[in-house]
């Protein structure tokens, strides 16, 4: 401390220290990043001619969507919707049932290291494959139809739900868990009385969110042969029945929106 009594000796300017201290490295990242982005954009081959040609095609394509045809001449539209809904529901239930033990095992504060690594491995594997890849496998294994879609969506649910469950458990209060453990509770009682109450509200919200995802994914899964509304949508596209396709898309949008609303309502309710 030298001469701190004189205000004149204090600096009057101050700058926040930069995030990356070394100025050479900082500029290298900024300039290098800009060059890479420019180069990447260059290799895209953006051809304005092709865009210009595409626009009228898009116009014709959209025109053929209107008016949407809800008349359901072949009787497959509502059947497809119903199939998608039950596929979404049972794959969510089955997926969550599988996710709970895996999620418990993947929480570092509950499981020994080897269980943890195994469960994290299962989650990583499930997350590696998007639902459409899982559906292609399932269709190859079990044939066309909603059963393949159900398998694909259930496996997809594990990667999502077990991971978030494990993370929520890891973030739960250690002192509440310790207090219940100190009473002499066994492992299952301990989970039921200290962990479950803490993670339940979020898990209920996520279940409904996952149901919503599974319903949307059921449209994708159907395109590769997994049944449901996706199969109906795919058929109507290949038969050039774009007005029916538009009707299907509108129904999907409405169902997803209503689920969105329901899920936020439930989340508030269980808090």
């Amino acid at each position: 401390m030298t001469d701190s009594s004189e205000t004149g000796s204090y600096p009057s300017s101050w700058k926040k220290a930069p995030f990356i201290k070394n100025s050479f490295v900082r500029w290298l990242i900024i300039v290098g990043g800009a060059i890479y982005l420019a180069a990447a954009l260059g290799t895209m081959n953006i051809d304005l001619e092709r865009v210009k040609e595409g626009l009228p095609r898009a116009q014709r394509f959209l025109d053929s969507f209107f008016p949407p045809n809800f008349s359901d001449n072949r009787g497959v539209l509502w059947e497809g919707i119903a199939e998608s809904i039950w596929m979404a529901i049972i794959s969510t239930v089955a997926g969550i049932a599988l996710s709970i033990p895996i999620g418990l095992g993947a929480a570092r504060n509950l499981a020994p290291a080897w269980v943890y690594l195994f469960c994290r491995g299962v989650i990583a594997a499930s997350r590696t494959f998007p639902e459409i890849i899982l559906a292609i496998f399932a269709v190859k294994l079990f044939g066309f139809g909603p059963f393949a879609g159900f398998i694909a969506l259930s496996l997809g649910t594990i990667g999502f739900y077990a991971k978030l469950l494990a993370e929520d458990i890891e973030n739960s209060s250690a002192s509440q868990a310790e207090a219940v453990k100190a009473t002499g509770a066994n492992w299952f009682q301990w989970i039921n009385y200290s962990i479950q109450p803490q993670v339940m509200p979020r898990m209920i919200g996520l279940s409904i969110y996952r149901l919503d995802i599974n319903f949307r994914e059921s449209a994708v899964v159907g395109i590769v042969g997994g049944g449901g509304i996706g199969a109906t949508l795919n058929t109507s596209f290949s038969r050039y029945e774009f007005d029916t396709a538009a009707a299907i898309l509108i129904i999907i949008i409405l169902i997803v929106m209503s689920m969105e609303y329901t899920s936020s309502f439930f989340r508030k309710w269980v808090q």
Partner: protein
Amino acid sequence: MLQLAELTKKYNTGELALKGVTLEIPKGQVLALIGPSGAGKSTLIRCVNRLVQPTSGSVVLKGTELTKLSSSALRKARRRMGMIFQEYALVERLTVMENVLSGRLGYVGFWRSYFRKFPRADIQEAYRLLDRVGLKHMADKRADELSGGQRQRVGICRALIQNPDLLLVDEPTASLDPKTSRQIMRLIQELCSERGLTAIINIHDVFLAQMFSQRVVGLELGSVVYDGKPDGLTPEVLTRIYGEEDWSATIKSTDEDDDDEEEF
């Protein structure tokens, strides 16, 4: 009743939290454990019920060596050791009643506890204890709706419904105001004498320690540096425990003994 011998705890970080602590606590004694933050107070009481596994040494409760128990025998032993926590550690989304009844988990099977079908005697005892601490009307409230002092009383009920021989109390007043702190300490003291309970109370408020205990043990850097009567805490002793400071205002003088009426 409780004997600690050469109890040592070394954490994985290499920190030596307890350096061979030896203590003998007779039945019915309320012992205050004081010392600065990081002296090992929390570690010491957690080594007794093995929320922390001691590195070496022994803990003998009523003739049972606790440090070597298998996990199922440990659960049985934990039933007889009630614990009261800093910041209450109630399960906030459970009701007051569920929190109190969770003290019986060691005595009932999983499905009974899962469906909240506790034996009638347990439910009666839960109501009796809640009534004793003045919270019977709060039984169906969620724990996070309660004030700090009320939560700590629920925490006390949860510990007592275990029907313990020993109470382990970890900084019970750490987040309470001075008046509530005194009420909680007095409640713990009264319940201990009603039931003839032995208690170890971690507390960093020297004044409260003197007011509500029969014996004070001072820990510093994992070693016992004082063990004696509450009124033996002279400025010299406090300096030995906490370091140099002006202690004149901290120590209870003898004429302050009688305190105001208890109210809830």
